[in-house]
Every structure is written in structure tokens, then in C-alpha cells.
């Protein structure tokens, strides 16, 4: 079969079946959009992990004068002796601790005021209520437990906090988003499969005279099937292109634009995904679209277009 003739047949098929083709395009677009979102969320988790795990610290908060309800703070505020003791304990954990520094009450209060500068809560918190702390950068962030157990309950220590726990909560959330997106994508892919099957069935019916003549004059199975296949692949590729467009819009304006500005202003958090991550998943999306079209068409053609 010549290419010009094939394209003519494909064009006729698409024209005669516009509404079904549009349905296939849209379903493919939505399913690949969800698939892409899931993949991007996964990449976001990886990006953030790389970014945050280097920076997260263990904070050892020292007793404030009011924190007497905690056993290790029964004596009121932390004393100079206790502080020195903790400092020398930290020095002894040389292998585990990469570095640490002390945040005094004044510095902590200053940072607190900076963070909550727009909040009415600010004025009701006295400076003494903000604890001093040792900020510990671990050589290996996974060894948190060792450090925590060494200082938890030590005299003058109110609490030990691992920022990783906070970050991990975010990761859990992002993983759930990613999983939900992929789950929705799977549902939509199932829709796409059924819809493509139905489309081919209808197209085969509307074209049964041509197909019948092709069979009678001895056209090969490939010749008879290939216009259907090309039509489906084209429709899913258009759907994939639209999905990629949507994802690009989401990344470019939603994440790189809006979110980065928002978060950078508030917390200094960076490490968000960008369009580069989108380029990385485009082959997966396009490959997925083609695979979806080819496999589904092949199954539908075997059932509905006899040779």
C-alpha cells in the first residue's frame, strides 16, 4: 500500500468518526495527565529528599524557665553547667555529628519574630518562652535515633526534635498524591482501552464494505489493519501532546512560578521540580500513548475486523 493512499484512508476515517476520535484524544489526555502528575510528584519527592536530607538537623531544645512540667527541666531554665555538659557530650559524638552550633535565646527570638512578622500571635509570646537550642548536623541523617537517645531526658534538655520527621511527613503526603494520581491514571487508562476498543468496533462497522472488498481482493491483514492502527496512534499522540501541554503549564506557572515564589518568601524552601523534570518524563508519556494505542488496537482488530 502506498503512503499517500494510506494517509487518504486515515484522513477519511478520522473525518467520518470525528466525535469518537475526539473522545479518544480527551481520554488519552486526561489519563496521561494523571500519569504525568504522578511521575512528577515522585520526582518532587526525590528532589526534595536530596535537597533536605543534606540540610535537616536534629534540634536539641533546652529548658525554658516555664517548662517545669518536663522531668529533665524540673529545676527551671537550663543552667550554664548543663549547657557545658551537653556541649562536651556533642563533642564526644564526633563520628556521628558533622557539626553543631548553639542558637541562643536572642537569636531564636529574632528568627521567630522574622518568621511570624505578620502574625498577631507575635506580641503574646514573651522572649523567655522561645527555647535556646543546639542545632546538630548529622554525618548520616539516618542515625538520628542514636543522637536522640543520647540527649533525650538529659538534664537541661526539654526535647529533641528531628526535622526529618517533619520533612518525612511531607514526603508521605507527596507519595500519597503521587499514588493517587497514578491510581487515577490507571482508571483512566482502563477507560481509554475500552473506548479505543469501542471506537475501532464502530469504525470497523462503518467501513465494513471497504474492509470486505479489501479481503475479497486479497489484501493482507496488515494492509486492512494499518489504517485503523494509524488512526488510533495519531489520536493518542494528539492526546499525549495535549497532556504534555497541560503538565507544562502546571509546572511552569503553577510550581516554578507560583509555588516557588510563595514558599521562597515564607520558608526559604527551594528544591522544587521544574520543566527539566517534565522533559525527562515526556518519553514515558509518549511511549505509553503509543503502546496503549498499538496494544488496544491490535486486540480490538483481532476481534472486530476479520481477515
Amino acid at each position: 500500500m502506498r503512503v499517500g493512499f494510506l494517509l487518504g484512508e486515515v484522513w477519511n476515517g478520522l473525518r467520518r468518526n470525528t466525535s469518537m476520535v475526539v473522545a479518544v484524544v480527551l481520554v488519552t489526555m486526561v489519563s496521561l495527565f494523571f500519569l504525568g502528575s504522578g511521575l512528577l510528584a515522585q520526582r518532587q519527592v526525590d528532589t526534595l529528599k536530596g535537597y533536605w536530607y543534606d540540610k535537616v538537623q536534629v534540634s536539641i531544645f533546652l529548658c525554658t524557665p516555664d517548662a517545669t512540667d518536663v522531668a529533665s527541666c524540673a529545676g527551671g531554665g537550663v543552667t550554664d553547667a548543663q549547657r557545658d555538659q551537653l556541649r562536651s557530650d556533642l563533642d564526644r559524638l564526633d563520628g556521628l555529628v558533622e557539626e553543631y552550633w548553639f542558637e541562643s535565646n536572642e537569636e531564636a527570638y529574632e528568627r521567630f519574630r522574622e518568621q511570624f512578622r505578620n502574625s498577631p500571635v507575635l506580641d503574646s509570646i514573651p522572649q523567655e518562652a522561645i527555647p535556646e537550642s543546639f542545632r546538630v548536623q548529622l554525618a548520616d541523617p539516618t542515625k538520628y535515633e542514636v543522637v536522640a537517645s543520647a540527649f533525650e531526658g538529659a538534664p537541661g534538655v526539654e526535647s529533641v526534635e528531628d526535622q526529618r520527621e517533619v520533612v518525612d511527613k511531607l514526603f508521605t503526603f507527596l507519595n500519597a498524591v503521587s499514588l493517587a494520581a497514578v491510581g487515577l491514571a490507571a482508571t483512566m487508562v482502563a477507560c481509554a482501552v475500552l473506548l479505543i476498543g469501542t471506537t475501532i468496533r464502530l469504525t470497523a462497522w462503518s467501513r465494513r464494505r471497504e474492509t470486505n472488498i479489501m479481503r475479497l481482493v486479497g489484501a493482507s491483514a496488515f494492509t486492512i489493519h494499518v489504517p485503523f492502527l494509524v488512526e488510533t496512534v495519531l489520536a493518542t499522540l494528539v492526546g499525549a501532546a495535549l497532556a504534555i501541554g497541560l503538565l507544562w503549564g502546571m509546572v511552569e506557572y503553577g510550581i516554578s512560578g507560583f509555588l516557588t515564589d510563595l514558599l521562597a518568601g515564607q520558608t526559604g524552601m527551594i528544591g522544587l521540580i521544574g520543566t527539566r523534570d517534565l522533559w525527562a518524563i515526556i518519553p514515558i508519556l509518549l511511549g505509553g500513548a503509543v503502546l496503549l494505542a498499538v496494544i488496544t488496537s491490535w486486540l480490538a482488530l483481532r476481534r472486530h475486523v476479520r481477515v
Partner: protein
Amino acid sequence: MITFENVTMRYAKGDAPALSDVDVEIGRGDFVFVVGASGSGKSTMMRLIILEHHATQGRVLVAGQDLSRLPSRKVPSLRRQVGTVFQDFRLLSGKTVNQNIAYVLQVLGAKRHTIRQLVPETLELVGLEDKGKRLPHELSGGEQQRVAIARAMVNKPPILLADEPTGNLDPDTSQEIVAILDRINRTGTTVVMATHDTTIVNRFRKRVVQLRDGVIVRDQDEGEYDAVEEGLA
């Protein structure tokens, strides 16, 4: 060219056979009328030759190939050797006469200049050289059937099957159609025509293979077809 060896065909288990122990040999260049009342098995014979169905028992050989052993990927090449014409013409209504005939060649991957040469040539064979740009519904029944014959012959198959080609046509037009088939036969094409038109059969005096309830009851050169005996007149 076409051989039926003890062929029995049942469409479903337990049904009465559509063909029962049929034994026929059709040679190269023959013209054969397959006659019989509706349901006698004429169309079943045709369908077995183009492998729309497989015989339940026995062997069908076409152009030297045993169809019961033909792998499915070789079915298209078998069909390319057999042109087919039907009672209902089966033309593509949206395409002109030229396009209908060219379609076959396009599907089979012919080159453009081959198509440009063969389409008018084949139209001339059926006497429609001036109707190439017409749409099927602008033609009479006889002309439509001639287009269908041209389409069946355009890739020059050695065998032409015609299943009740005159079933929708008046007697004069039917004669014209069979005359065209006769002319095609004289160029060396094996022609098998299923019909229950006694006038045609008795006028053209060709070999007659008569079926009744799936059994061959007559196989006669320059044979005739008795309508009274068949209950048709």
C-alpha cells in the same frame, strides 16, 4: 484449477450438510454454471473456494493449493488469484467507477502509472470506457454489475467467481453480463458462475453442475437446466 474431493460442509454441528460428498474438477479455462434452487449449496461452494469457510470434510484445491492446509497468512495471496462478483454488486457508493476499480490496485500496492493504465483498460473490457467518472448510483444495475466485474478482473486473476451475478437484473441485461463473462473466459480465465436462471444456462450451453440439497445431481458438458424438474417454472 479448482478441485472438490469428497467435500462435505456443515455450518453447525448437527445441521443438515450444505454440501454432501461433493466431487468436482474444474479445469483451467473452463466455464461452469453451478445451478440449483436456493439453499442447494451453490454459494457454499463459492465460499469454500475463497476460503470464507473451511470444508468440514474432504479437500478443496484451488490453483494447486490444498485449502485445508493453507496457513492463514497465505489466504490473501489465494484470494488475489480469484476475482469475485456478487448479486448485490458491492461497489463503494462514495467513489466513482474509476476510483472503485483503482481501489483494488491501491489496496494491493500497485504503482500509480500501473493504475492509470489498468483502470481504463479494464473498463474497456466491460464496455464502460466512457463511464469512469460516474458514481455507482448514477448507473443502471447492469452497468453497476459490469463495474463489479471490472473490479474483480483488474488485477487479472486466473479464476473468476460470480455468485448469482444476474439475480437483480432483467433478462436482456443478464444476457449482456453473461456475454461479458463468456468473453473473459475466452481470454483464458476460468469462470464459475452460480445461478438459477434457466434461460441463461440453456442459452449459453456450457458445462452445468447441478446441486440439490448439497448433492451433485448433474455434471454435464454443454448441459441444460430443467426448470420444471427443479420446481422453478
